[in-house]
């Protein structure tokens, strides 16, 4: 398979995962939501909270990841990644392929 085609197909999948996650995740207290594709085929659902993370947050986000894993079963391996603002800004400035949905103004 052509590498460019494969990459664009993976990016489309990441975008689809991100859009579905957006519908599920409670945006209150969230700065950004993003999906990053890793080399081993894992999609990281990245959440960037505005406040210190609580166990309740993690349980909610893991619930969404669990639902996304079932929705995209066989197509993507999805994992949760929680980043702070500094890490997220470094990630945004990198050239790593990702689908970004900045919720700052949502």
């Amino acid at each position, binding site marked *: 398979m052509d590498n460019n085609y494969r990459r664009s197909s993976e990016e489309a999948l990441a975008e689809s995962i991100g859009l579905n996650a957006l519908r599920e995740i409670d945006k209150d207290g969230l700065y950004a939501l993003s999906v990053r594709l890793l080399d081993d*085929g894992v999609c990281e659902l990245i959440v960037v909270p505005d406040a*210190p993370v609580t*166990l309740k*947050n993690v*349980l909610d986000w893991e619930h969404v990841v*669990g639902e996304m894993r*079932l929705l995209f*079963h066989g197509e993507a391996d999805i994992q949760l990644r929680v980043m702070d603002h500094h890490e997220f800004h470094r990630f945004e400035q990198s050239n790593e392929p990702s689908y970004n949905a900045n919720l700052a103004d949502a």
Partner: protein
Amino acid sequence: MALKDIQLLKKRANDHWQAALVLASAQNEWAAVAAFYSCFQLARASFLMDPVFDNFAEMKLAHQHLTPDDRYADKHQVRKGSHGFGMVDLVQILYKHVGKNYRVLHQGSVQVRYENGLRPPYNIQDLMDLSQEFQDEFHAGHLIHSRAKELLPTDPEDV
């Protein structure tokens, strides 16, 4: 080889939980690992007993890719492109009300075993509480898909 004897799975679950209690009282983070594996054994016992795997229509309603062989799952996760489901996904499919508890318990176990220990916001007592809640659901007979699908996910505020 993974156990298939339900009584033995229940016994091992209790053995792990007793170890978790001892470790937690000493503030040893390996309590999180033992607490997770107590739930792991109960989840396996639940899959073996759950009649959903004997009812093709009900099974496909739960998830179109579910097969009878999934009741024998013993891996935590399967990777992209692999057939079948890992146990973390199966708990989410069949017992959605405790799916996130199980995912978080699994993450805590991974953090202790392979990473630099439990990371905030996880702490030993939180994971013990999540494990206790999962065990309570098992013993209440709620880890049967036909019953579980009527139950809402537990409120994290109660954790």
